[in-house]
């Protein structure tokens, strides 16, 4: 129907666009199209036809606007919330916004952190990885237990913290919310093994009771990132923790 608007309609024999036809003045001495219609037995049919044309035009414009709004807002939301290869690096469940808090950050990264309401560490000195799913792709949830395993970077400060879906800390009597390279217990084989569980566990246990969906943040502060000589040379999969579901209740 929008095509009709562009191309014109052939109603009545002449090729006129719809607005022209609807609002055109009748020639002197001639009867207007409404007067003509009223004088015929088909006037009811003609009015119905014009209402149908108007409704089709309205529907088409509504559809056009809906498609534009959905496509425009939807694509912007996706790029700001999830990110793409233009602005993020992903490894398994982990996502890293590569230009976080940098003066030359792309607009998606700026919008992402503005919407989150956080002040991230600059990616010039730190990597801040965020995971909302386990390594198999299932959403992290407090009804499940997860094991985090990591071979920590040498000579860099790092931390692993657990939050609810919106980045709030999870209330717990043990007051455990994060482990850092200074406070975590490292296994004899040099690995960090952490447990996310609502039930008390030994070692590096982070309580998750009652949080619903979870998000885990892994931060590494490494000055050598600025020179490109540090941990970033390691294989991506070795740089981030594995998150393995151990069971759900």
């Amino acid at each position, binding site marked *: 129907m929008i095509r009709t608007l562009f191309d014109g309609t052939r109603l009545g024999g002449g090729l006129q666009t719809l607005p022209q036809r609807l609002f055109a003045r009748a020639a002197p001495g001639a009867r207007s199209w409404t007067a003509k219609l009223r004088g015929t037995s088909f006037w009811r049919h003609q009015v119905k036809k014009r209402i149908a044309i108007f409704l089709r035009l309205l529907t088409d414009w509504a559809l056009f606007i809906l498609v534009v709004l959905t496509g425009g807002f939807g694509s912007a939301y996706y790029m700001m919330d999830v990110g793409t290869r233009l602005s993020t690096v992903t490894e398994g469940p982990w996502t890293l916004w590569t230009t976080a*808090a940098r003066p030359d950050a792309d607009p998606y990264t700026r919008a992402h952190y503005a919407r989150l*309401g956080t002040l991230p*560490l600059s990616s010039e000195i730190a990597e801040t990885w965020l995971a909302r799913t386990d390594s198999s792709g299932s959403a992290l949830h407090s009804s499940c237990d997860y094991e985090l395993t990591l071979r920590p970077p040498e000579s860099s400060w790092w931390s692993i913290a657990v939050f609810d879906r919106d980045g709030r800390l999870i209330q717990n009597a043990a007051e455990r919310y994060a482990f850092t390279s*200074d406070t975590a217990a490292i296994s004899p084989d040099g690995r960090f093994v952490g447990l996310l569980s609502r039930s008390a566990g030994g070692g590096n246990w982070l309580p998750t009771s009652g949080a619903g969906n979870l998000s885990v943040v892994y931060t590494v502060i490494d000055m050598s990132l600025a020179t490109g000589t540090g941990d970033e040379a390691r294989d991506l999969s070795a740089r981030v923790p594995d998150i393995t579901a151990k069971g759900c209740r």
Partner: protein
Amino acid sequence: MKTILAQLRKFDLRLVLAAFFAMAILHVATTFAAPSIALATAWDRLAPALKSNTMVVFPPVGPDTQPLPYLAPDSRVAMCLFDTRNGKVAITASLPAPGWTLTLYDRTGAAIYVAAGRPDQPTAISLLLVPDDDRFMGLTPEAQGRRSPRQSPLQVQARKGLAVLRAPDAGYAYRAINEAELSRATCRSVADTR
């Protein structure tokens, strides 16, 4: 295949192009406007609670004392809302160990200066924030042919923003030391630093 092509021919190419063009405009406008129209940016959350040009040491982060989302208790933080509209602002801090960072953010959350502690030696930071407009702030001692009475601080152009000093949590034994180090950091307006 012919059916699909026949179906596709029903679409007006001009309309499809117009839709994509309108979508692209909306996409770009939304993305660029998002930092300004976001409901609760970090600046919106922190600015009402901070006094201008004063370093404030925040209490240990916990569920009831979490000033920002995703701010973990792996660090203690001290923050200063700097404002150079009325003159220069001096910031001093020490970064004694790896994990310590000092970051200056502008109102949109972009870092305009960042420094991190090193493993081999403490890093002393002395910054002088100057307005980012063309205001004449006077000649420097060097320009006047005199020796500066003290070591020149690093000058950073900035108008309004947040200075965030982070001290990593190194365990219970170090908390008092870290808090004392955070308390020594300063952020103050200076009339003349010559």
